């Protein structure tokens, strides 16, 4: 009886030592040095707006271009590639029924039935994710962007339940091992936080358009929805565009031309 208690205490001691050693372990892994680091002068002429919005011409986007857009986004922002239920996505694609479930078309045209749609965070005017976040980790900026402060995220995933567009992904595990090539000038995320598309705030701050828009070969336009002369308003004046699940009243900032 005494022996077994002593053994138990020994084991407990060794376990405690092991645990404390694990927490001392070094975190993260590095990558190659960056060639072009942003300097203070790069932020002199940021793009600004009252309400950022995006219009996607879905007929112009083919398979290759969509893949290019996704790659441009995911490779820059260090989005890990994880298959299955724990997948992380900022920009992804899906078919009509999943994209516009409330449209309920009985006889879809063959063309639209086959078409895939590029999906991302809609940066809603009334974002439900912001309302439910208990720590204000998710917040809405004055220019309409729904941004995240990963430092504050406690991983409760209320925002994921609230978002009707599935735009948010949770890091169930450390994402670092799943990033093929780490982009050294952009941080990655850690286990236990939610992440999503940022409308490329870091590029807007440097006066550049979002990466997917740059890679879309003109199929996507990005601009100020409140400015009648902006590119997005010009496109919307000419072509009929719809938004995802408008009946929910979140007022998405991403428009789709069919």
């Amino acid at each position, binding site marked *: 009886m005494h022996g077994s208690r002593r053994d138990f205490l020994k084991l407990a001691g060794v376990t405690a030592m092991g645990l404390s050693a694990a927490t001392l372990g070094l975190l993260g*892994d*590095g*990558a190659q040095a960056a060639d072009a680091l942003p300097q203070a002068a790069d932020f002199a002429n940021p793009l600004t707006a009252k309400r950022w919005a995006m219009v996607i011409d879905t007929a112009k986007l083919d398979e290759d271009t969509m893949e290019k857009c996704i790659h441009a986004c995911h490779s820059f922002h260090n989005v890990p590639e994880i298959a299955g239920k724990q997948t992380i996505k900022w920009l992804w694609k899906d078919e009509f029924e999943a994209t516009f479930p409330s449209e309920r078309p009985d006889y879809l045209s063959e063309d639209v039935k086959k078409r895939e749609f590029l999906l991302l965070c809609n940066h809603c005017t009334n974002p439900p994710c912001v309302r439910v976040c208990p720590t204000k980790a998710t917040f809405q900026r004055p220019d309409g962007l729904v941004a995240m402060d*990963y430092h504050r995220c406690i991983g409760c995933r209320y925002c994921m339940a609230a978002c009707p567009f599935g735009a948010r992904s949770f890091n169930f595990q450390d994402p670092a091992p799943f990033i093929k090539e780490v982009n*050294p*000038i952009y941080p990655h995320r850690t286990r236990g936080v939610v992440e999503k598309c940022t409308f490329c705030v870091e590029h807007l701050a440097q006066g550049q358009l979002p990466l997917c828009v740059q890679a879309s070969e003109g199929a996507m336009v990005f601009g100020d929805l409140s400015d009648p002369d902006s590119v997005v308003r010009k496109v919307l004046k000419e072509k009929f565009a719809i938004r995802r699940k408008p009946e929910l009243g979140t007022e998405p900032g991403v428009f789709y031309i069919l």
Partner: protein
Amino acid sequence: MYNAKFIIPGLIVFLLLVLFPFVKGFGTPEMKVELEKPKTAKQCVLKTEQMRDSHMVLLNEWRDMALREDKRVYTAPDGKKYDISLTNTCLQCHENKEKFCDKCHNEVGVDPYCFSCHNLAPVKKEGGK
């Protein structure tokens, strides 16, 4: 005094335990940490003493400025402008976390979680971990 045979030895043991760290540490030299200074720059964002004392406060301010207020440029007291970024500004000069950040952090036993996200860009290039 009641129970003096328990209380006095108890007090002695208590005092020994409380004073042990002071007795043990007496005469040992002051803690000194050798840091690898950046080769590319001479002046940090703030004075060395200020950075040593309150770099964590500055980093928190930078985080809120960049994320919440969308202010991306920090003007140092000497007028020089910096991109507000731990990844791209701090770690650009302080290339090797193990030879700079970790030295003090390990010595004083703090474990900040900065580096679970912010890349240690050039460390690998030097053959580090």
